[in-house]
């Protein structure tokens, strides 16, 4: 049981929008996006250079050293 908990709490490092970030092991894309974006409905995720469609956020688990970009709309001409 202790060993299981230890595994569950393991941290790993990813790069989120250019900044290093420690997150829990087995964190899904969905969790990260819900936790960092106020309006997830217009967020687009690019993981290691590939776009991850919204329908795959829940099933995509981040790995050590992943590079994640979360983008959305801002004012522009």
């Amino acid at each position, binding site marked *: 049981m202790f060993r299981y908990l230890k595994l569950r709490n393991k941290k790993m490092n990813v790069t989120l929008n250019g900044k290093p970030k420690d997150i829990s092991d087995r964190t899904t894309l969905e969790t990260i996006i819900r936790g*960092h974006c106020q*309006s997830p409905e*217009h967020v687009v995720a690019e993981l290691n250079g590939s776009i991850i*469609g919204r329908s795959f956020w829940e099933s995509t688990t981040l790995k050590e050293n992943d590079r994640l970009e979360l983008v959305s709309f801002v*004012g522009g*001409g």
Partner: protein
Amino acid sequence: MTVQNDNLTIAGKTFTSRFLLGTGKFSSKTALAESIAASNAEIVTVALRRIDIDQHEENIIQYIPKNVTLLVNTSGARNAQEALRIARLARESGCGNWIKVEVINDSKYLLPDNAETVKATELLVKEGFIVLPYMSPDLYIARELVAAGAATVMPLGSPIGSNKGLKTKELIQILINEIDIPIIVDAGLGAPSQAAEAMEMGADAVLVNTAVATAGNPQLIAQAFAEAVKAGRLAYLSGLPSEKICAEASSPLTGFLYE
């Protein structure tokens, strides 16, 4: 008198307004929403950026009416491949496939890189995007953009945000005369009179951002631009009389009481 069915058609989609509004630099989202309403714009531009993960930002899309066509620009792209990456991300957001190609290498004048703009347009059209490229007015480049499948060409009047007006007027006139897809004058228009001038020349539409967003009262100037665009369009459709070197009397040339 009204002109019937004088609509702007881009890629098969019909618009009654010939005024496109950019959404950058507004002091508040409320000012933006009020300006969109006052402008009657049916196409507005937005940009795509990294989310600031340390700060909760308001979603700009909720301030844009649902019936307005979103035109996502590729600002930040320095070459065709970067423009392609931004466009793919924009499409994934579910806000349509209309892309304003904007490829810029020069941060001082923000002039578009025409060669990379042509390459980006070719790539994006092949991927099914509706492409509206921002360009420096040049006939050969405009022809290449048409050949690449661009939906419009968007020549600059003067550098972005400069409010200098139609410094490229003669070159834009050539595009208006020679290019069969819509010409949308984009960038540098600083006053409604300049927008009217572009429309009088025969431009199909204009896009304004800075002059509206940074005015003392954005809502009021948005309306002024919209009315100027309409006035300029009506003047163009009326068949403007040409300039003459010598005077031509408006009153009868006979003397008042004497022969």
